[in-house]
């Protein structure tokens, strides 16, 4: 996957792997997963379920697969970090970057042989024979410290960070401090032990303990535990308004973490901020503030954000959008500026709806939407199109904006539209750019006299005008011609469509709408 400088927004359906990408990047650059060091967190659940199942099944057959491995590569801009340059990467060409592999340790061949021979009873990947290899493209072992890009993963969606949240916030704080400040902090923490020991009451207690300690001739005393190198990191707690950090609201946590990560000013270190679904746990206004901060402060930092929210995507510019679908990524970077602007201002932010549904039907207005939905239900056992992954979006007269995106990233989109009395001009010529594209289809009728939905619908039901009057609740005697009924409908646009939608009568539909229904059923 390619990421650009500044902001990157990953969108994709649930289970499309958005979070995995953020976690993989964070793991490869920090060695930390779920807030803990990978070496202590190795488990078979890190592996893709399908791959691990295939592997385990294969062990029971004659065609055994070799133990699966996980390989993550994070590639930097070439020549920015020449120390990391070399050919140790999947492409085997020169890159600058870091590779992290979770792979079978060949040293355990003989144990593995025993394991494989136990065939039937195997239910898991033999993770105890796995090792973690972490190296640069120049084939040198790396550590979180030696990697110049420090990632910060901000994820307030997942409960798995709750336990590790202490180390989590202290990492961000730690990154925020320079070396001198870090040393000062740890010194201050150490001197705490000293002053504890000098406290009069503690001295008294220790004296008493020593006198009564008949058990041993050695000195017995109480002291503050102050031990290993980085003890201070784990013992210090971050407070917000005197409330421990992990006790404050999740949304607030997300905002604090993001702001800390963004305002970090160490110039010698490149910063990468990974944010998982910033919209969760935040009110609309707080989210707005956060997004504004992200935009203002992302200068010289790279951000990768996953989201389900069109609002977030639009606010942070569609240009930065990366669409994840069926393990494929597509970018919107080539869209014209005016289209970006259009979607940015659009109320309701339908962009992601377009991006995330299997098929989209674009219609002009509410009545078109209602009639199409009704026609769909009639032919699909009362199911709404959305239930089959088909979204119907009413876009007034802005079809081409949507089609531009659809063309660029090969979305399946159909347009249902009126010919407005001139099929050649309004349909053929207008949509010439999209002719012959397999993923885009324009449905309109070439009969110029049936210029819009109302005459089309009356025409389709011309045999049954009385039923229409009944459905609309109008006088059969007064509205006794095609023209009169059409006229009525044109002045009661949404109203008649709603009545059709809710009616239990059977209707006929114009041919171009029926074709669109067929398109929905195409594979």
């Amino acid at each position, binding site marked *: 996957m390619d990421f650009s400088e500044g902001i990157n927004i990953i969108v994709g359906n649930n289970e499309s792997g958005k979070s995995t990408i953020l976690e993989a990047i964070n793991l490869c650059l920090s060695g930390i997963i779920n807030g803990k060091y990978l070496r202590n967190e190795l488990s078979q659940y890190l592996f893709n379920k399908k791959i691990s199942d295939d592997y385990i099944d294969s062990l029971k057959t004659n065609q055994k697969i070799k133990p699966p491995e996980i390989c993550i590569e994070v590639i930097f801009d070439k*020549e920015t970090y*020449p*120390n990391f*340059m*070399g*050919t*140790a990467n999947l492409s*085997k060409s*020169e890159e600058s970057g870091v590779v992290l592999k979770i792979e079978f340790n060949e040293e355990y061949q003989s144990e593995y042989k025993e394991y494989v021979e136990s065939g039937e009873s195997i239910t898991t990947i033999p993770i105890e024979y796995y090792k973690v290899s972490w190296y640069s*493209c*120049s*084939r*040198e072992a790396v550590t979180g410290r030696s990697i110049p890009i420090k990632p910060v993963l901000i994820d307030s969606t997942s409960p798995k960070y709750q336990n590790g949240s202490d180390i989590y916030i202290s990492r961000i704080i730690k990154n925020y401090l320079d070396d001198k400040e870090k040393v000062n902090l740890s010194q201050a923490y150490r001197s705490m032990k000293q002053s504890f020991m000098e406290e009069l009451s503690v001295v008294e207690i220790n004296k008493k303990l020593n006198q009564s300690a008949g058990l041993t001739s050695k000195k017995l005393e109480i002291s503050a535990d102050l031990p290993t190198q980085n003890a201070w990191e784990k013992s210090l707690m971050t407070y917000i308004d005197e409330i421990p950090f992990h006790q404050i609201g999740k949304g607030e946590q997300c905002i604090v973490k993001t702001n800390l990560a963004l305002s970090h000013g160490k110039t010698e270190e490149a910063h990468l901020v990974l944010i998982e679904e910033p919209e969760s746990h935040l009110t609309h206004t707080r989210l707005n503030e956060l997004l504004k901060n992200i935009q203002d402060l992302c200068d010289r930092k790279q951000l990768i954000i996953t989201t389900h929210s069109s609002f977030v995507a639009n606010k942070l510019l569609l240009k930065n959008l990366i669409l994840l679908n069926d393990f494929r990524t597509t970018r919107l970077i080539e869209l014209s500026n005016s289209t970006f602007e259009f979607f940015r201002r659009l109320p309701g932010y339908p962009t992601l709806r377009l991006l995330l549904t299997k098929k989209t039907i674009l219609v002009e207005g509410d009545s078109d939407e209602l009639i199409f939905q009704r026609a769909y239900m009639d032919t699909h056992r009362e199911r709404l199109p959305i239930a089959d992954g088909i979204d119907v979006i009413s876009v007034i007269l802005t079809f081409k904006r949507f089609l531009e995106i659809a063309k660029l990233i090969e979305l399946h989109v159909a347009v249902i539209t009126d010919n407005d009395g001139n099929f050649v001009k309004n349909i053929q010529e207008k949509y010439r750019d999209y002719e012959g594209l397999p993923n885009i289809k324009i449905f309109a009728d070439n009969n110029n006299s049936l210029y819009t939905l109302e005459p089309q619908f009356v025409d389709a039901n011309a045999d049954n005008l009385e039923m229409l009057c009944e459905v609309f609740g109008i006088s059969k005697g007064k509205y006794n011609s095609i023209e009169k009924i059409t006229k009525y409908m044109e002045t009661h646009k949404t109203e008649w469509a709603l009545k059709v939608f809710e009616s239990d009568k059977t209707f006929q539909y114009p041919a171009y709408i029926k074709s669109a229904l067929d398109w929905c059923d195409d594979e």
Partner: protein
Amino acid sequence: MNNRIIVSAAGSGKTTFLVNQALKLKNESVLITTYTEANESEIKQKIYEIHGCIPSNITVMTWFSFLLKHGVRPYQDALETELSDKMIGFYLTNRKSGHRYGTVYWGESDFYKYFFNPQLKIYSDKVSKFILRINDETNNQVFKRIGLIFENIFIDEVQDLVGYDYDLLHHLFKLPISVLLVGDPRQVTYLTHPTSKYPKYRYGKLIEFIRDKINTKEIVCEVDTDTLKVSHRNNNKTCDYSSLLYPELPAIVACECCRDDLVAHQGLYMVKPSDLDVYLERFNPIQIRWNKNTPISKKTFAINMGKSKGLTFDRTLLYPTEKMINWIRDNSFKLKNETKAKFYVALTRARYSTAIVLNYKETEEFRGLQKYSPGGYNE
């Protein structure tokens, strides 16, 4: 491109000089490398002494570590793609590697047997050649990368480099970085590895190599025989006398700053074997011998000539070999490279006095040497 080789005198404080040069470069990356681990740790020690810590812009590593890390591994698969995910180790050898049978050795066409031992450890005498091959194959990528990482490369004890190492230096000189080489061509007491490459330029003939084979209009490595010609260890007499061994190089000069004229018995002396016991008793010198087969007195500490490199003593007593005696008698006598280098090293160890054990006749006089007589005025 700013390349310089400084010819240093024994005791000129070369390591201190190098370290100070590196510490001046606050905002540039510096690599300091040297052939031996002993000298690597001496350089680190020196940096700690002067600066308290090793600044993050300075990297100190041995020549072979540098070659493995930045020469071999980044593009190790350039010649054989299957090497891509293998771990290449290192095998230090002081004999010609890749032995096949009898006097026959594997050739380069047997790629793996030529460059590696069976555990895929690259032979130390072939590392440089391997890197040159990779570099050719990758269109100079190995050195381009090195040039991006280090803005300055300092090599201490550069006289330890031989053969294909010279070609590596040639590539380093072409980079848009500063290369500073420091060494004493007089102190090549052994060859760091056997090589058939550039036999003419072995034994400290790097300067001749630079003049003959490297320096052109485009690439220049400046030869500096001035900056480090002053010895802070030896007095004038010792400097003058040891300089006679290498008339083609500018003479070493004793510094003004470290001399202690109040100490008696300074300079170069001849001591008859019959006076040895008295002399040892009186001055307690360190005995310097050719090797452990040289008969010496058990009274004071003794060291081999080759091992004494880099060390400083107050007083020394030398056991010259026959050839060395020939040279003492006639300074135009041609010594072998190794003998000459060891003799030079042995002569330049003492701060105050260097005595040479020599059975001379009272009528004989030798240039630069005083006769020692017990109870005489020169005690």
